[in-house]
């Protein structure tokens, strides 16, 4: 029994990790006041570029780095459209997703039947020998540790550094930030780029570690779930982690329900994560004051000095 539970928890960690990366990245983007709906597209481009780079070079880490560049590059495209060209953020985000789906399918054509070697977990000395906890916390793959580190770094940055304060100021009131001498557009570019690099990393985790395969549209809506998780988290990193693992759990449980003898068709079970996303959004959004209080005040609004 312990074995099954440990197995489910480990699988939950794995399924939640792409969401951790993508959601933390979008959180930073949104903190600067920019709503990038293109997470799905950036994840796919990150996944396919990372996979191709790893397959060609034989190095998984090279693939990981390339996926961040690819996701960040897509985000810069979004930045040029919305920050320099003042395009509508909703429309530009949709364009990024449509473009990402098509382009990743095109890039990935030669890689659909390629497999990659598994990443070996890092066994921390002594700690990994502790029963149960050792396997759950101290013998994970390196990218999961990276996701923990990212969570720590982002929480520290947002609430304990001057940079984090400036970022939040830009998102709350770009006009005030400008009058304090901060370069709003440049800061937003950085935040958008960071969100894209993290989405690319989330995609890379899926393609390089979780599956490890390239399949067309393999993100299956995780980019959109990440956007919903930002709302769920009420723009707080700690709740991002809770949300991401909750959803990882929902994804994993659907595979185990049938094992417990419940006879529900697999397609209908697969709707669970999407229905859970809607449920979670409803529960959070019904309290309009929480949203108003926590959402960056300038979220989604274009900023131009002339306007």
């Amino acid at each position, binding site marked *: 029994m312990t074995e099954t539970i440990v197995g489910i928890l480990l699988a939950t960690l794995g399924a939640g990790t792409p969401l951790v990366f993508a959601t933390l990245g979008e959180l930073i983007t949104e903190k600067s006041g920019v709503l990038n*709906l293109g997470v799905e*597209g950036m994840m796919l481009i990150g996944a396919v570029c990372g996979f191709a780079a790893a397959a060609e070079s034989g190095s998984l880490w090279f693939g990981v780095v390339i996926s961040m560049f690819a996701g960040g590059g897509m985000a810069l*495209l979004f930045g*040029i*459209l919305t920050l320099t*060209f*003042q*395009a*509508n953020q*909703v*429309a*530009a985000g*949709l*364009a*990024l997703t*449509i*473009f*990402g*789906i*098509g*382009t990743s*399918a*095109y890039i990935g*054509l030669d890689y659909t039947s390629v497999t990659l070697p598994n990443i070996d977990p890092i066994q921390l000395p002594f700690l990994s020998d502790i029963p149960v906890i050792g396997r759950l916390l101290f013998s994970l793959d390196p990218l999961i540790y990276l996701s923990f580190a990212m969570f720590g770094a982002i929480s520290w940055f947002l609430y304990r550094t001057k940079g984090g304060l400036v970022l939040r100021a830009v998102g709350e009131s770009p006009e005030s930030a400008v009058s304090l001498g901060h370069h709003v557009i440049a800061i937003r570019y950085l935040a958008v780029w960071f969100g894209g690099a993290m989405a690319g990393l989330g995609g890379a985790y899926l393609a390089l570690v979780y599956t490890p395969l390239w399949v067309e549209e393999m993100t*299956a*809506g995780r980019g*959109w*779930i990440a*956007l*919903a998780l930002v*709302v769920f988290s009420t723009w707080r990193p700690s709740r991002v982690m809770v949300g991401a693992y909750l959803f990882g759990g929902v994804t994993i449980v659907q595979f185990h329900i049938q094992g417990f003898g419940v006879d529900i*068709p697999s*397609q*209908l079970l*697969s*709707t669970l994560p*999407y*229905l859970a*996303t*809607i449920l979670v*959004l*409803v529960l959070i*959004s*019904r309290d*309009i004051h929480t*949203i108003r209080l926590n959402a960056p005040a300038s979220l989604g609004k274009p900023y*131009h000095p*002339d*306007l």
Partner: protein
Amino acid sequence: MWLKIEARPAPSVRMKYLSPLIAVALTLMTGVIFSAFMSLNPLNTFHAFFISPIDDWYGLGELGVNAIPLVLIGTGLAIGFRSNVWNIGAEGQLAMGAIFGGGVALYFYEQEGAYVLPLMFVMGALGGMFWASIPAFLRTRFNTNEILVSLMLNYVAILILSYLVHDLWRDPDGFNFPESRLFSESSTLPIVLEGTRLHFGVVIALGAVALAWVFVRKSFLGYQMQVAGMANAAALYAGFKRKRMVWVGLLSGGLAAGVAGLMEVAGPIGQLLPSVSPGYGYAAIIVAFVGRLHPFGILLAGLLMSLLYLGGESAQMDLGLPSAVTGVFQGMLLFYLLAADLFINFRMRRDTAGSRVAGAGL
């Protein structure tokens, strides 16, 4: 000397209509560069993409067949987009229309009767509207983001369709393939142009364009929704009812997508399959924007997008290019359009040293 971007005193009407043309031209140019990069002859590529698919009557018919769902859904979505109601769940609403309408066809299998097809239309429309009513209800009742809800429901609808054709509605004589029975004669759309696959849906799509034009131009609600899209504060001050706009905006998209889905399965496909649309629901979003959210513009943009679909198929056959190229160019078209739209509200100005000094003097 630098180029400086400054706001125009008033939005340029000329740029509003020029910008889609610029976007198309830039997409074409990128295509030329792309084909040169792939060491293909640009002229051959152009021919394969835009000429050979429509150089006979059959091809022109196919142009219409693909344009029907794109124009219909684009028109429906645009009504919502005009008032900033973002329904991006058309792909799922299309699948629901196909399920509801196709269900009628399977229920009345091999029964001849003039009532079957109209009933299919009614159920297809209801299916699409039902699926769109979920984000509308959640938005108006619980303030839930309609973008995310309508998008999540796309996956749900497609999984339900997949379940039905794999299980409940699978063709009993179909060797276990995931597909329903072929619809009977009485539940198939009539062909309007001999020798092509162009079906009755063309009348519906053109009717929808006309109807949408009347709604946008002549009705008070259409006017209110336009005001809300341009200046929400003004609309609120005037007392326009936001909830009604959300409902109308989402249901019009759902209605259009549901009917489009029904017409796909009762027309060119003729049965229910795990996939009933090559992304029409998403492409229609681009169609709505490129068509400037105007019914007649959407008609033209729908034809263009349909040509992109056909061109992708023919480039696959003639040049061996993968069909994924279509998706790349669809996204690119929207990128260029959004970038070109800058010049509706802004213009370039040479930022000379002189003007800087003058500016500093103020």
